C-alpha cells in the first residue's frame, strides 16, 4: 500500500510539479472556452488522457466547486467557485497575450514564420510573431504596416468587411501597387480572392515571383463574430506546400481552440466595456 501512495506522490515532472494535479488543472483549463459544457469522453479525446484519469480529475474539481454537473447530471460545467480565482489587481489578458501561446503552437506545427496582425485603418499591423531561422522567410517586424490588399492577412481583414466597405477601400487605394513589384493588383482579382476567402473561411495564397511564397492566414473572431485580428504562417512554396497539406487539419484545430478563447471577449473591449 505504501508503494501505491508513493507512486502517486512521487509522480512528478522535470521541474518537480505534481503530475496528477497538473492533469486536474489541464482538465479545468479546457473549460476556459465559450463551449457550454463537456462530457468525460470528449475531455478524454481532447486531452489524450484515459477516461479514468479524466473522471478522477473531474471528481476533484466538483469536490472543490470549480465544476458542477449540469441539470442532466451527464455533463460538466464551470462552477461558481471559479469566481474566487480572480485578483482585482491583475489586468485582463489582451489580444496579443491571448494569442501568444498559439503563435508558438503554430510555429511548432509548421516550422515556418508566424505573424499576428490587427487592422489599423487601411493597414494591417504586426503585433506579434516568430521568424523561422530557415532560409527564405516572411519578415514579421512588430509595428510594421502593410496595406490591406498587399498580403494574406490584410486580405482576410478585407474579406470579412461588408461589400460596401471593400468598394470604398478599393476606390481609396487604387491603383493598388503590389509590394516589391511594378505590377498592380486589379480590383477584379482582389474581389475574386476575397470571395474565395469568405467561402473557405481563411486565406491560402501563393505569391508568385523568383521565390514563390505560400501563406495561410486565419481570422481570429471575437464574441460578436467580428475580427480581433489574423494569425498567419507561411514560407517558400517549394518547402511549405506539402507540409501545409499535412498539418492543415491540426492548424485549423489550433485556430479553432484559440477562437473559443478570443470569443470570450469583444474586439473593442479595451475602449468601452468593462472587463
Amino acid at each position, binding site marked *: 500500500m505504501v508503494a501505491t501512495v508513493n507512486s502517486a506522490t512521487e509522480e512528478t515532472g522535470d521541474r518537480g510539479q505534481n503530475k496528477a494535479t497538473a492533469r486536474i488543472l489541464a482538465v479545468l483549463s479546457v473549460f476556459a472556452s465559450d463551449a457550454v459544457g463537456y462530457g468525460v469522453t470528449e475531455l478524454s479525446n481532447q486531452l489524450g488522457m484515459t477516461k479514468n484519469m479524466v473522471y478522477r480529475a473531474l471528481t476533484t474539481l466538483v469536490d472543490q466547486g470549480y465544476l458542477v454537473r449540469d441539470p442532466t447530471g451527464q455533463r460538466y460545467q464551470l462552477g461558481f467557485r*471559479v469566481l474566487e*480565482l480572480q485578483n482585482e489587481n491583475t489586468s485582463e489578458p489582451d489580444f496579443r497575450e491571448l494569442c501568444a501561446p498559439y503563435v508558438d503552437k503554430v510555429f511548432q506545427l509548421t516550422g515556418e514564420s508566424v505573424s499576428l496582425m490587427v487592422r489599423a485603418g487601411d493597414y494591417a499591423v504586426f503585433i506579434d510573431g516568430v521568424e523561422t531561422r530557415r532560409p527564405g522567410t516572411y519578415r514579421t517586424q512588430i509595428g510594421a504596416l502593410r496595406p490591406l490588399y498587399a498580403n494574406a492577412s490584410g486580405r482576410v481583414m478585407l474579406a470579412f468587411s461588408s461589400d460596401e466597405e471593400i468598394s470604398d477601400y478599393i476606390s481609396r487605394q487604387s491603383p493598388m501597387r503590389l509590394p516589391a513589384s511594378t505590377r498592380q493588383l486589379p480590383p477584379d482579382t482582389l474581389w475574386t480572392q476575397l470571395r474565395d476567402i469568405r467561402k473557405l473561411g481563411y486565406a491560402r495564397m501563393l505569391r508568385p515571383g523568383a521565390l514563390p511564397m505560400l501563406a495561410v492566414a486565419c481570422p481570429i473572431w471575437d464574441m460578436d463574430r467580428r475580427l480581433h485580428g489574423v494569425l498567419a504562417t507561411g514560407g517558400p512554396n517549394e518547402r511549405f506546400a506539402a507540409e501545409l497539406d499535412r498539418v492543415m487539419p491540426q492548424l485549423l484545430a489550433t485556430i479553432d481552440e484559440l477562437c473559443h478563447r478570443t470569443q470570450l471577449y469583444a474586439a473593442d473591449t479595451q475602449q468601452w466595456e468593462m472587463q
Partner: protein
Amino acid sequence: MRARSARAVINSSASHVFDVLRFICAWPAPLGVTDISRQLKLPASTVYRALITLEEADYIRRHRNTPRFELAPTPHLLNRALFSRFELHRASRPHLRSLAQATGETVSLWARLGWFALRVGGAFGSRDVYHRARLGETRLLHDGAAASVILAGLSEADLASYRSFVDTHFPERRPDAGWAAEAGELRLIEARGFATSALRMAPGFDAVAIPVRDETGRPVASITVDGPMLRSGAVALDPRALQARDDLEALVAHDPAAFLSPFAHIPADEILIRTPSASEAETDGAA
C-alpha cells in the same frame, strides 16, 4: 483500499495547489514562496511544488522575472467563460453601451447568483475620471445598492432564508443596525423602486440601482448607473435608465428559460463564494 489511499493523496496535493492559487488571488501584490508558506502554514517545498505546477499549467506566472508570482491568463479566461454562461452578459451589452453613451456615466449590470449579486456586464462612461470597476465582482445581497435592490424584491420566505445563510456563513457581514432595521430599509427600496449608494470620490452624488424583473415580478438582475444621475435626495430617475431596464425586461420575458442563471438548478444555500469583494467590508454605504 489501495485506490482510495492513492486518491486521497492526489486530492490533498490538489487542494494545496488550489489553496495556493486562491491565496495569490486574494493578495493585492505578487507573492513569493516564503510569503505563501508563512501565511498558509505549509512547508516551503509543498508551496514551491504547487507554484511550479500552477506556472506550468499557465494559472500563474512570474511577476517581471522576479521570484514572485501573479495570476496568468487562464483564471481570467475561466471567469470570462463563466460570464458567457449568463445570457444577460451577452444580451445586455448594446443596452448598457447605449445607456453609458447617452448619459456619459459608467453603468453596470448585476445578475442574481444564489444569495449574491454578480457584476456580469458594464460599460464605461465618457468621463475621464472613473472607477476602474470590473466584471466578476460579487456582493452579498444586502451589500450595496446593486445587490439590495434585488434582495428588496424577494419574498418574505426568501428573505428569511437569506438571513439564515448570512448568519451561518458570513456572521461578520450581518448588517450593523441588525436585520430588523435592514428589513425596513428593504421595504423602503421596494416601495421606491430603486436604491442608491453614495459614490466614492464624487461628493453629493449617488450611484443608482434599479431592479430588472422577470415576468413574475421577481428581480433577476439590477442596473446601476455610477454617476450624477441623481443628486442626493432627489426622487426622479433618468428616463434613459428606465428605458434600458424596460428593454432588458422585455428580453427576459420573451425567453425566460434562456435568461435563467446557469446555476438555477443548484439551491441558493449551496452557492457559497468567498471572494475578497464578497467577504470584506466595502467603504461605500448601502441603500
